[in-house]
């Protein structure tokens, strides 16, 4: 966090309200984008809103590095009465990650909507994208349990509509979006039921206040039931194995912009809430939390890593392969979270950060290649390296990071996870990470073999190089994957500070 301690991103007058402007910026931009006269204007508003949110996230991160926690009382009602935004290092890390990915995604959306969304609908699409972003940022900023539910639903409802908008290219987007809507709503409703149980037991909705009262309520049956409802509900949203059934379809058929943005942020925000509730709201020393992490989350995470890596190997559609790989990566992250040690949490959060960068780059490269040719199956992409070398090179860099090749971000975070697993003597976890890295080698190798070494299908149109407006955000993400593999002081500092903030609350 030392990088952020000296960072005064905005003038003091703005910094004082940065925590809330972070969410309000994209929210207001969404309204403006919906009213925009044409797609060009809507795109500029989307980029403006995203950049503003990132700017505010930098401001908040600076304040958090200096003060530890930024608290913002809505309407001046002091906590625990009113709704508060409470951003600690963990929240700042997620706000930075979500808004940074949003900037890259919004730049990408200048071209990616061509051919996917009708021109007349593009401004509404951008509005939905900004709403979704506001919801996700709100989840990372809020300090109120019910407010977290509202932001979860704000982002989710936007997401359902935007995934369904992929039907312009592939009608399978519609059943996929419907399936996600059912699963996502069941998840969010289970979450809010759990919050209701906690409210019944504690009489408060403020997370910090709730944590204090829950510390003495470990044996309360309502609290235990509430915990079960909350983690299962959030587990669905986070695509925790075996609750991930909605994810492959949703990622594979969504418009490319949503595939980029969702894969990097949506499940991550749900993981954020799991960490937030399990370790800072509930008493992490309570038997039901510790046993849940050791006996349910950890084995399921291990299973997800192996099973979904295997499933990724046998897919015929490129985006579906990447989607299954995402479920496996969620497994890595939850494995680190389940360890419950500072090292494990740091490793898990670092992997979360790195995975967001690489998976956004991979989906963006696939979307960029599919701009010129209607390419869905893996074999449709054969010969891409010859006709679109720059796009393909960025895909290659990000896929090396996905495999965990040394000098990439993916290697470093897997290494940290292995170190943490050795630290808690989970030898099986070390074996799982080693085996799954070999499986990743197989499925990433399969992708690269088709794209680099095979020649294009005879008679088909060659995949064209992506326009410069797409190459810029794509290479930003790809270079970040390399940069943070060599010099990880920024993400690792953030992850360490987050783990300390989460585990040191009591």
């Amino acid at each position, binding site marked *: 966090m030392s990088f952020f301690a000296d960072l005064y991103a905005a003038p003091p007058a703005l910094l004082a309200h940065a925590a809330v402007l972070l969410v309000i910026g994209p929210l207001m931009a969404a309204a403006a984008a919906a009213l925009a006269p044409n797609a060009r204007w809507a795109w500029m508003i989307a980029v403006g809103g995203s950049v503003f949110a990132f700017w505010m996230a930098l401001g908040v991160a600076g304040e958090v590095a200096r003060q530890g926690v930024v608290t913002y009382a809505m309407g001046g009602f002091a906590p625990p009465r009113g709704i508060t935004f409470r951003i600690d290092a963990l929240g700042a890390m997620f706000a930075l990650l979500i808004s940074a990915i949003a900037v890259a995604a919004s730049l990408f959306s200048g071209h990616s909507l061509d051919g996917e969304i009708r021109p007349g609908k593009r401004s509404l699409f951008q509005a939905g994208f900004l709403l979704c972003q506001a919801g996700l940022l709100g989840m990372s900023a809020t300090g109120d349990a019910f407010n977290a539910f509202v932001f979860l639903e704000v982002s989710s409802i936007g997401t359902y509509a935007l995934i369904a908008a992929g039907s312009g290219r592939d*009608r399978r987007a519609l059943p996929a979006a419907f399936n996600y809507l059912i699963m996502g709503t*069941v998840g969010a409703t289970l979450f809010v*039921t759990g919050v209701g149980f906690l409210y019944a037991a504690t009489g408060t909705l403020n997370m910090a206040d709730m944590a204090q009262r829950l510390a003495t309520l470990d044996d309360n049956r309502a609290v235990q039931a509430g915990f079960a409802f909350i983690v299962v509900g959030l587990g669905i949203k986070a695509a925790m194995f075996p609750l991930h059934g909605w994810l492959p379809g949703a990622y594979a058929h969504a418009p490319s912009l949503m595939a980029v943005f969702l894969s990097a942020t949506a499940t991550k925000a749900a993981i954020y809430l799991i960490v937030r509730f399990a370790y800072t709201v509930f008493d992490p020393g309570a038997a039901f939390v510790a046993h849940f992490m050791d006996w349910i989350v950890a084995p399921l995470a291990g299973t997800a890593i192996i099973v979904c890596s295997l499933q990724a190997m046998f897919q015929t559609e490129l985006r579906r392969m990447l989607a299954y790989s995402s479920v496996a990566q969620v497994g890595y992250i939850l494995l680190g979270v389940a360890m419950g040690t500072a090292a494990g949490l740091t490793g898990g959060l670092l992997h979360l950060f790195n995975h967001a960068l690489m998976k956004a780059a991979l989906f963006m490269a696939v979307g960029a290649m599919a701009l010129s040719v209607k390419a869905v199956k893996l074999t449709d992409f054969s010969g891409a390296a010859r006709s679109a070398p720059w796009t393909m090179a960025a895909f290659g860099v990000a896929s090396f990071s996905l495999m965990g090749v040394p000098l990439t971000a993916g290697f470093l975070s897997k290494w940290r996870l292995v170190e943490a697993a050795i630290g808690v003597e989970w030898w099986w976890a070390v074996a799982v990470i080693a085996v799954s890295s070999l499986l990743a080698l197989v499925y990433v190798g399969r992708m690269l073999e088709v794209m680099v070494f095979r020649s294009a299908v005879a008679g088909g149109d060659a995949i064209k190089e992506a326009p410069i407006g797409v190459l810029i955000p794509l290479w930003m993400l790809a270079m970040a994957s390399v940069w943070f593999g060599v010099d990880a002081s920024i993400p690792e500092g953030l992850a360490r500070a987050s783990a300390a903030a989460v585990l040191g609350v009591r």
Partner: protein
Amino acid sequence: MSFVTSHFNYVVVIVLMMGGLFITFSTGNLIKRMIGLAIFQTSVGVLYISLGKVAGGTAAITIEATSEAGRALSSKLDPGYVAQYGVDGVVYSNPLPHVLILTAIVVGVSTLAVGLAIAVRVREAYGTVEAGEIAAADQAAIAQADRRKSGGRGR
């Protein structure tokens, strides 16, 4: 039995929640799934409202305990309750759950609207709202595309 009758609201919550969930996952008809989902979400509303209810409590609008309405309300309170909590005057139900559920209802209605809109689009694209037939249509489309591709190569 007295436990069930004294927790009747929660029995209703459980029946609605499990019934809604069962409908959502047992049927393949997209419209019926949305109906199940709406029932499931409604059950949470009943849960929250039940949490905030105080027996004999009134809406949270200040009433002078000495006024006629105030005396009428406090006379209806359960004497056991008054003795246990030392209540003096008018008792109010907790208004916060109502506010929360108002928000949750809005969320539920928006979800329902989006879900039904997607179901309409599914009907336009596939000509059916049955999950089984949709999956079969997708399988058939993939098989056909494969055939066309291999046939093209053969020529």
